[in-house]
């Protein structure tokens, strides 16, 4: 076993020249013991050979790919004590197969590339998370002191970055394994330090913390992303991270307050809001139904209505007139509402789908049922109408309307006659669409279904009056 001494843990040049000599001397990787720093090993005292490696004759020198030097100069800074040996073993293989550096699928190259990547990440995180504190020196000039605990041997490798960035300041970076001091002109290295040497009270830290707390948006908590990029091991040396637990804990409450405040307080001019929404809806292209239809048929009624009636989609006459429920189905709806004692003028009347979907048959346009995609494309408008009008009761007329409201397929016969609580605390009620009544050929059955329709509306009316 031959011992190779290196000046320090990050002594790349030392490793490079020793590795070159050893490779030329044909020494196998397992016969070398790499010894960084001053410490002596007496593990193999008897078998140790400390003789210097033979010098390299210029003629014998050999070249390695540039990429190997790049990877090795990073990987050498890794804390893993086996890195010197791993790199040397790779170097030996590289002499026989110079193309090996291109083969990223090679397991030992992958391992070494992984070490280099870990080192680069550590270098990057030091640049990011190191925090200076301002300390006023005896001569009344400021000095900036930082305490950082890098994982790998990166302090010296990172010095240039801090010198360039903070060239005009006087600063010290203290770490457990060494320190750097810059006086504005020269860089000095010092021994390892202790956290307490960087202690101090910097009033700007409070300002920074209040910035950190206010830039955070409580409506979008993403703790996983934060932890992935800023792992907990860095937290103890960053002033702002002390706030994180309370920010997370308070986020939900802050958001609830915002929503609650908006629910209690009237939001302002709902009529103008609906008007603006209708304007925008005129050029809606969210689904292809706008092409054949004449126009968008938007909802109508008071902006503060307690009751919202939602149909399926405009029909032939609605499409031409631009108003909901003005055709034959609308007539039936009007009659039934009157019988149930509901004044249509007090209700906001709209449709789940705002364009007429039809199949041309000669000169006629036959109603066609909107599909799931069209209903879900148009739900955006219904949701907007609901959040402006904020009705306490919503009557869904037919299965399409119920689906738009509840976001799931609904069977009318099973759901009618009872309230379904929606997530904004309003009540949805479900019944048939009036045009269903128009399509029943048998007169007796039609009359039956009509009275069930009126009964559903009456039950709703009773519920409204009861509250």
């Amino acid at each position, binding site marked *: 076993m031959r011992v190779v001494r290196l000046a320090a843990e990050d002594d790349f040049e030392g490793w490079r020249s020793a590795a070159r000599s050893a490779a030329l001397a044909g020494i196998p990787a397992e016969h070398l013991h790499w010894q960084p720093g001053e410490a002596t090993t007496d593990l193999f005292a008897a078998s140790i050979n400390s003789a210097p490696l033979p010098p390299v004759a210029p003629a014998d020198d050999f070249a390695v790919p540039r990429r190997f030097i790049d990877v090795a100069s990073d990987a050498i800074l890794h804390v893993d004590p086996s890195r010197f040996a791993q790199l040397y073993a790779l170097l030996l293989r590289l002499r026989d197969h110079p193309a090996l550096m*291109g083969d990223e699928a090679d397991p030992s190259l992958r391992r070494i590339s992984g070490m280099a990547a870990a080192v680069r990440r550590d270098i990057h995180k030091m640049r990011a998370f190191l925090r200076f504190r301002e300390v006023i020196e005896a001569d009344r000039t400021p000095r*900036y002191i930082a305490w950082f605990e890098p994982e790998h041997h990166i302090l010296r490798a990172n010095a240039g970055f801090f010198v360039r960035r903070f060239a005009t300041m006087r600063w010290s970076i203290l770490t457990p394994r060494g320190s750097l001091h810059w006086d504005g002109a020269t860089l000095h290295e010092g021994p390892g330090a202790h956290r307490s040497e960087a202690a101090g009270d910097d009033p700007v830290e409070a300002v920074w913390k209040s910035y950190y707390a206010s830039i*955070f948006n409580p409506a979008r908590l*993403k703790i996983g992303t*934060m932890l992935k990029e800023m792992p907990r091991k860095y937290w103890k040396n960053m002033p702002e991270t002390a706030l994180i637990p309370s920010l997370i804990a308070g986020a939900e409450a802050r958001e609830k307050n915002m*929503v609650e405040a908006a629910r209690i307080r009237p939001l302002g001019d709902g009529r103008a809001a609906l008007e603006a*929404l209708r304007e925008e809806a005129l050029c809606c292209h969210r689904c292809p139904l706008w092409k054949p239809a004449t126009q968008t048929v938007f909802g109508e009624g008071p902006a503060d209505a307690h009751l919202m009636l939602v149909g399926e989609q405009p029909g032939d006459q609605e499409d031409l007139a631009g108003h909901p429920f003005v055709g034959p189905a609308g007539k039936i709806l009007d009659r039934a509402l009157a019988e149930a004692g509901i004044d249509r003028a007090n209700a906001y009347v709209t449709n789940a789908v705002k364009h007429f979907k039809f199949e041309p048959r000669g000169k006629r346009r036959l109603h066609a049922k909107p599909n799931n995609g069209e209903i879900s494309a148009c739900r955006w408008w219904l949701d907007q109408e609901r959040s402006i009008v904020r009705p306490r009761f919503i009557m869904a007329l037919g299965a399409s309307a119920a689906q738009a409201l509840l976001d799931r397929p609904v069977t009318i016969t099973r759901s009618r006659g009872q309230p379904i609580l929606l*997530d904004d605390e309003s009540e949805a009620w479900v019944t048939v669409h009036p045009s269903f009544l128009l399509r029943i050929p048998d007169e007796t059955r039609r009359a039956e279904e009509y009275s069930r329709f009126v009964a559903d509306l009456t039950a709703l009316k009773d519920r409204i009056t009861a509250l």
Partner: protein
Amino acid sequence: MGICHAYAPDGRCISLLKILLTNSCIFDCHYCINRKSSNVRRARFTAKEVVDLTLSFYRRNYIEGLFLSSGIIGSSDYTMEQLVEVARSLREDHGFRGYIHLKTIPDADPALIEQAGRHADRLSINIELPTEAGLARLAPEKSAPRIEHAMSALRSSIESGQDARRRYRSAPDFAPAGQSTQMIVGADASTDRDIVGRASTLYDRYRLRRVYYSAFSPIPDASAVLPLQRPPLMREHRLYQSDWMMRFYGYEPREVAAAADPVTGMLPLDMDPKLAWALRFRDRFPVDVNRAPREALLRVPGLGVKAVDRILASRQWRRLRLADIARLSRSIAKLRPFLIAEDWRPVKLADQEEVALRSKPRAEQMELFGA
């Protein structure tokens, strides 16, 4: 920009001191907490205060630089003058070498924009909303043609600046980091297809560096025109992924649009758009990792740019097997159905597997409108 010096619990990177000179504003944009009609408390910094704050944060290594914007006070020109003064003082009085991003006010005097470009690394003008109809409803004082006109003027200044630098090394820089814009998602009726189309037009027409998407999130003192709603965070994420597909993976905008649902125009929320595209165009797969060109490999869901480059380098030296691909990529399970390797050939992608590829339903996000 540059290094992220901290991350907030909302997962966002903090690299710049991002502040408003003032939150007073004469405009009434409904998505904005600082709109004229909001009851928010108003405050204002002096230019010197912003300069001092920026320097003291920069010296402590908290930030890379400053991102300065402002509510409109007095006039557009007056506001722009104040923004420019901050940048000028940082550069000229303090020799500040950090990053400066100034939000540019579309109607400001071109001479002021010129000065802004001399001091700032990046300038940006917000397009605000993907559709003109949306802008008309939510930001009635703003006009899409005026915004685009300003973007186009910025493009010319940036390009003539670059041109001058190419000829004379001493020519002054003009916003060397280019221009970007921001679009609010979920406040108007635009679909993902609309947004992707809009963004790609902006990239082409004004040579933008980035289009930033911002999921509309509830603000205190909400407006009647734009009531509180759940922030569409996953949607924002999917749009960013589609942006990456165009910028780094060689997809055309119409191809990204083809990943969206043909009727609703929305990208699926339960899988990323690259996977959605692959499932819609199954005839393009499987791709042979030992033969396929770079462009085809980049379309394999689960293979990133780095993994593709590693595959291309490695396959010059060996025939790649599935185990090799596993070492070069993140998750072989997701890749397998789309790949042919030396020892692997997938059977036709069954529906069962397709279900497994979709992301597992996540724990519900914080309840916004819980009963």
